[in-house]
């Protein structure tokens, strides 16, 4: 256990990016499943599709960073299988949106904590720190927009 120390090595940074990829994979797989659940609600369907696409883009960007840190990633198919195995379909429209909101909020919190940990670390990573931070800040910003968009859709359906 280490208190007050975080992300002191390339390896730990790569591991956190891998966790980010898995979180994106969870969002992507669940959003795709949700599209099936809410068929007919055009604006929500469109949102879920764009959420899945956005997560796939985020994955690619994180994978790009990991490639320069020389670490492996977990294949999407493997996560999809895990999500399938544990996924309980939400019958209620509100539940679908609520779960999507939780996913977006969790992703935002993850990137926010990760950015803070990198900023407070003195470690010289083999990848340029500013490149990592710029990428993560952009992704965090998109997650924030996602939270706002789901909240808006939830308000519209009240």
């Amino acid at each position, binding site marked *: *256990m*280490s*208190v*007050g*120390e*975080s*992300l*002191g090595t390339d390896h*730990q940074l790569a*591991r*956190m990016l*891998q*966790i980010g990829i*898995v*979180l994106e994979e*969870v969002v992507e797989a669940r959003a795709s499943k949700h599209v099936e659940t809410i068929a007919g609600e055009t604006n929500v369907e469109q949102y879920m599709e764009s959420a899945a696409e956005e997560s796939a883009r985020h994955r690619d960007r994180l994978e790009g960073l990991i490639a320069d840190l020389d670490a*492996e990633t*977990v294949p999407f198919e*493997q*996560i999809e299988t*895990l*999500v399938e195995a*544990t996924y309980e379909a939400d019958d209620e429209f509100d539940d679908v949106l609520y779960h999507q909101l*939780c*996913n977006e*909020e*969790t992703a935002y*919190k*993850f990137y926010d*904590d*990760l950015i803070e*940990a990198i900023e407070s670390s003195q470690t010289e990573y083999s990848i340029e720190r500013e490149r990592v931070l710029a990428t993560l800040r952009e992704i965090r910003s998109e997650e924030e927009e996602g939270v706002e968009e789901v909240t808006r859709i939830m308000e519209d359906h009240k």
Partner: protein
Amino acid sequence: MNTADQYLKAIYLAQMIDDGPASTGQLADMLDVSPASVNEMIGKLEDRGLADHEKYKGARLTDEGISRARDAIQTYCIIERFLANVLEVKNYREEARALESVIDDTVAERLDTIIDRRPECPDCFDPEADQCECLVVEMEGKAD
């Protein structure tokens, strides 16, 4: 998991190992910090009603402290299981310890949805081994 939760978890596990209060020295060893840092944090935990400290004996968690510590162990268990069985990390214990301070409870809850954790968690956590005694590692020989 924040620093206070890491201390609560360590005190809880130390109490389990010794069946008594957790000494400053033991906590310093477990958390790899100085005894002065331990004393400072125990003072803060006392102020928040999460622990009681008796001179020359050590720290004991209050009921609220125990509840928080058990939550922290669950979060830790999620991280260990996730690293071992999703990312297939061989040194999952060491890595879980290194990353626990960066992974928030809400993130751990999300990771929990794709791992197979026992309903009796955290009672199945082995304080000596510092891992869940029911953890079955499903390695396929990858990741270091």
